[in-house]
């Protein structure tokens, strides 16, 4: 791969946002070089390519950096125009998918707060997360009127990727909470969606090992939650 026709992705194994970009590249079958960033010691390249946010993921295509995971996915879909398409081609359906992606976005912070708090604070953000997911459970029937189909013929798209980056590692959330986060009783559609995605080879490839993820979250919890007297 020459410098002129190169695709590189700066990511971090635990970042759900980096996972999105990784999954999009794999679903599209694009050759790329992956660069694992140590977020406590960011590379010169990363800081040069994303001076505004200094975050992963950053896609570097032919030397040009693209930052922000959703922007990256949109870019990939527009440059590599062969199937599979990550967004629908119909503008109204595209708007629907973008709506749901915008719906899920604030949940990342709420769920993250759930993971790094305890007591009453945790209870509050957990409730908030679960109530938002209740809305998704009902509302997503407009996207999946006949339930979630298996991803055999149709590869995951933009919305699937964002949803998976939120809920795909729910087992780690379960471990931290000490109970199931996404119960099949309360969220039959969302659970079937996660399970259908977990059958997809590209999805399996990008999912971080749950015990490693739990270890990292525990480490961050210890630093965030003051020890009890």
């Amino acid at each position, binding site marked *: 791969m020459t410098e002129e026709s190169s695709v590189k992705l700066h990511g971090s194994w635990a970042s759900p946002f980096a996972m999105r970009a990784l999954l999009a590249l794999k679903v599209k079958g694009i050759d790329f070089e992956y660069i694992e960033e140590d977020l406590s010691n960011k590379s010169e390249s990363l800081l040069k390519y994303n001076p505004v946010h200094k975050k992963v993921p950053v896609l570097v295509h032919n030397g040009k950096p693209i930052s922000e995971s959703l*922007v990256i996915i949109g870019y990939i879909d*527009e440059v590599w125009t062969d199937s599979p398409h990550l967004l629908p081609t119909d503008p*109204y359906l595209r708007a629907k998918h973008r709506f749901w992606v915008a719906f899920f976005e604030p949940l990342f912070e709420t769920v993250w707060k759930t993971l790094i708090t305890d007591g009453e604070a945790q209870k509050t953000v957990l409730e908030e997360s679960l109530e938002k997911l209740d*809305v998704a459970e009902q509302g997503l029937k407009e996207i999946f009127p006949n339930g979630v189909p298996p991803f055999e013929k149709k590869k995951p798209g933009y919305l699937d990727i964002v949803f998976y980056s939120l809920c795909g590692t729910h087992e780690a959330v379960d471990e931290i909470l000490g109970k199931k986060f996404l119960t099949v009783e309360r969220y039959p559609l969302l659970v079937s969606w996660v399970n259908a995605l977990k059958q997809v080879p590209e999805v399996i490839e990008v999912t971080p090992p749950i015990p490693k993820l739990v270890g990292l979250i525990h480490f961050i919890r210890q630093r965030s939650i003051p020890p009890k007297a």
Partner: protein
Amino acid sequence: MGDEVEVRVHGMWASTYSKRVELALKIKGIPYEYVEEDLMNKSQALLEYNPIHKKVPVLVHNGKPIVESLVILEYIDEVWPDHAPRLLPRDPVDRARVRFWSGFLQNQLLESVLKLVMSSGEEQEKALDELHEKMTIMEQEMGDIIPKDISSIQSKSLGLLDIQVICTLGAYKAHEQVLGVKILDPHKHSLIYAWVNAMMDLPMIKEITPPHDNVVNFIQMIFKINPSA
């Protein structure tokens, strides 16, 4: 089509999000019917069109609702590609740049303005500093996206970022009056100052700009701020 109006916007005169949609349609010369919503007494139609968020703006195109202002703007650009100007550029790298800054203007700049209005005392000073930091980043990093030749700014060449900037900062004088702070200083942020004021001078922008005193009263009322002496 019969009696069905092709394009309708449910909005609210003081909403920055609602203004984005109106401006996009006006810039592209797309006729629309406007429905002013009383947010204390939302119409049945609004609640049906946006059951999840129950917010303005809603674009109704041939009877189908699209919600979330930035989603609506992308939709408008995709459905009326022959109505110049394009809100987003054609080239994927440029589109990615615009979307990156759109995210920044939404999540960083607008967030800072909202924090500023909702806070007081020391917190407000911090919020103002934060807002100024964002504006400095914009001037340092946006490059040629910020128009340097002010005389080149005209209604027919406005795009997505122009729309977001004018809808976020266009009412800065009203905010400055209510809060007693300097938001947009021509010495600190000369490029943004020139950009905003050049746009405020355009007839199309003047058409959608509410009277200064109405905005002042609105800000005071909504955020229960006492007018400064």
